[in-house]
């Protein structure tokens, strides 16, 4: 119980957004807290996200066919609030190693 903070980052495929996108990187930090609510835990906090990508190699052949690559960046925040079972076995979401 108490304060909770962690960093995360991974590449994600944004091809579903537009075909010209490929992988971009989303990194961020969650800062929040966990409070005891009997059989439940209440998790609240805010995540700061950072998106980074480079527009390059539009022909996808490993060389620049004219033009200059340029970075694409952005960041945003999102609030988070959830109540979860303390006993992970009682939650359809919480079972670790439960295949």
């Amino acid at each position: 119980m108490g304060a909770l903070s962690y960093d995360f980052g991974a590449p994600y495929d944004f091809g579903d957004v537009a075909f010209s996108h490929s992988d971009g990187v989303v990194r961020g930090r969650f800062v929040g807290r966990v409070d005891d609510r009997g059989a439940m835990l209440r998790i609240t906090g805010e995540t700061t996200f950072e998106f980074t990508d480079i527009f390059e190699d539009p022909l996808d052949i490993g060389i620049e066919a004219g033009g200059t690559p340029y970075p694409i960046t952005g960041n945003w925040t999102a609030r988070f609030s959830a109540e979860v079972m303390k006993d992970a076995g009682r939650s359809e979401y919480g079972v670790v190693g439960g295949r």
Partner: protein
Amino acid sequence: MTYGPRSLTGALARYALLGLTGLILLWAVFAGARWATSFQESVTLQSGMLLSREFDWNRHGRWDLFATNGRARLARDVEFVCFNDRYVFVQSYDRGFTGLYDADTDSRVPVDYSDAMDISGLDKPGGGCNGYFTGWVGPGLLLDDGRPPFLPPCAWRNVDNVALRDRAWFERPCAPGPWPPERQ
């Protein structure tokens, strides 16, 4: 011959079409080769376990965890890892594979998250990871030849954890700059 000019036009059109087809085929060969090689990417962790990018029709490739022999698949669809010289905790898109994996036994350790982080030494008080990085990192940021932006922040290198044996790991490419990202 009254059809000379039309023949010339036709011939030019045929050559243009042939050239265009050739260009498209050439592009397909290069792009296909790059696409195919993207599924040969892998990262060997200090423990000997292997993260490898695998072909997947439904996703733009996926990352799987393999045992120290490089062949036995332990976990699929890895999103984040936290790892040290023996263990790796995997966060998988498929929750059934989320858990702690031990290189000494090449298997998953059947404990919950809290116990897993305790026994592995990966626990960082207040959250985060106490392995080679302090953050939860996607395998795609761990490649030997990683280029920006596909790198973990330099600020995540857990140099303060003296129990980590592979100090050369901290010399790998990383993304300089301030961390965490500033709020807007």
